[in-house]
């Protein structure tokens, strides 16, 4: 039986030099699922996210997005994507929100949000403009359309980055520690936006240190440790009845 997953990875391995960061990860996300990926630093959680959209190329493993499998070819030193066009197409279905926002500094907020839909997806500029304004309104910065990123607070920049991701109308949104670079008082506004997206039924994979968000918003929690998935279940299961002591210690250390 095949389930129509928005995203699935099987047996993903990734090493940097001698350091094996991912030691065989299996993970599938159904449509509408919000998966929080927890783990201490160095556990491989960011690398997992980056392997999913091939910013880092996994050494081994299968990645499928919306039923399409990334074609890899094996070379002596590992595998590489067989077709960069396919990789680009897949990436355009997986929007990513970065820890450091990574807005394009020479473009206004509106231009940032419109850029990829117009030039990568080649959609009509007028349509995209309407969509972009809609999403910027939605994340609460509809009054900042013509402002450059540097003139926004971190929280506003991250919300703009989320609007940029939304405007691609992606299958899955990948969040790489979206609140870790924010001042504490700005974390709430970004989490609120993410919470709204989760309620809308968007498929999200969120690498985070926000235990509260993981517990209350996500439909599933994954705990990564030394490149392996140690916990995988509903927030309730994982937080109330963790399988491993490692997770208990991790939570205790975060409190």
């Amino acid at each position, binding site marked *: 039986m095949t389930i129509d997953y928005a995203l699935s990875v099987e047996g993903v391995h990734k090493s940097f030099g001698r350091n094996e960061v991912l030691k065989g990860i299996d993970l599938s996300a159904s449509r509408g699922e919000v998966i929080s990926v927890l783990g201490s630093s160095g556990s491989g959680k960011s690398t997992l996210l980056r392997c999913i*959209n091939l*910013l880092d190329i996994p050494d081994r493993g299968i990645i499928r997005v919306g039923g399409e499998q990334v074609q890899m070819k094996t070379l002596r030193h590992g595998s590489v994507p067989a077709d*960069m*066009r396919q990789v*680009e*197409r*897949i*990436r*355009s*279905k*997986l*929007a*990513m929100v*970065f820890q*450091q*926002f*990574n*807005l*394009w*500094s*020479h473009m*206004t907020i509106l231009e940032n949000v419109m*850029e*990829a839909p117009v*030039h*990568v997806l080649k959609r009509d500029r007028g349509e995209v403009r309407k969509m972009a304004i809609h999403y910027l309104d939605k994340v609460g910065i509809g009054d900042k359309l013509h*402002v*450059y990123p*540097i*003139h926004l607070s971190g929280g506003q920049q991250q919300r703009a980055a989320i609007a*940029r991701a939304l405007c*691609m109308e992606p299958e899955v949104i990948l969040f790489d520690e979206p609140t870790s670079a924010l001042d504490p008082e700005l974390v709430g506004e970004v989490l609120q936006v993410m919470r709204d997206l989760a309620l809308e039924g968007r498929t999200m994979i969120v690498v985070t240190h926000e235990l509260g968000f993981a517990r209350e918003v996500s439909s599933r929690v994954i705990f990564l440790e030394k490149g392996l998935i140690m916990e995988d279940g509903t927030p309730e299961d994982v937080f109330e009845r963790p399988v491993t002591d490692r997770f208990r210690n991790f939570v205790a250390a975060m409190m």
Partner: protein
Amino acid sequence: MDFSIIQESWPIYFDGLVTTVWLTVAALVIGLLLAVPLAVVRVQGGALAQAPIRAFVYFFRGTPLLIQMFLIYYGLGQFQWMQQSVLWSLFSEAWFCALLAFALNTCAYSVEIIRGAIVATSPGEIEAARACGMSRMLMLWRIILPSAFRRALPAYSNEMIFMLHGTALASTVTIVDITGAARIIQSRYYSPWEAFLTAALLYMCLTFTIVFFVRRLEKHWQGHLLPARVSDFE
């Protein structure tokens, strides 16, 4: 001091001004158009593709502009094969040799300016471009170059001014630019002070014109990139 001679000889200066302007503009345009692809290859190309560009930049930055112009204008004429080549009609012209030397010279400097600006692109912004599925060409065209040009502008405005002043050397190969005009007036009236002061003022006007337009471009391109606080200091 007698500036009536300048009034009398104004047409010569005007012709000189026109020559200086077109030599500068043509050299800058040709140099920049060549420099952009060369800078991209210099950053992203393989070692083999980079080598000739490195050599080119090294030569043109490592030798005086005057020597480069003399090599092209006087030096090449020494060879039989050059004189028999179809290009001789161009290479026997002083204006062509001067323009070629200027364009290649400014190109070499521009390659380094643009290369530096490309290298300084924020890795995060490149990552964001890759992550949304941009191809390398699209990323170059939409993200890397536009942001590099903005960063390169202050250094490049210096290069434009250097090139403007560098064209004064054209007067040494019979071209009547502003400096050439001043030399004619000087020898005609034996009044070097008035002749060269007039030339200096004309160069200053041209320099300020460049500065004025760069300022406007900076306001348009860069003002918004700076935090509001920086402009408060001005």
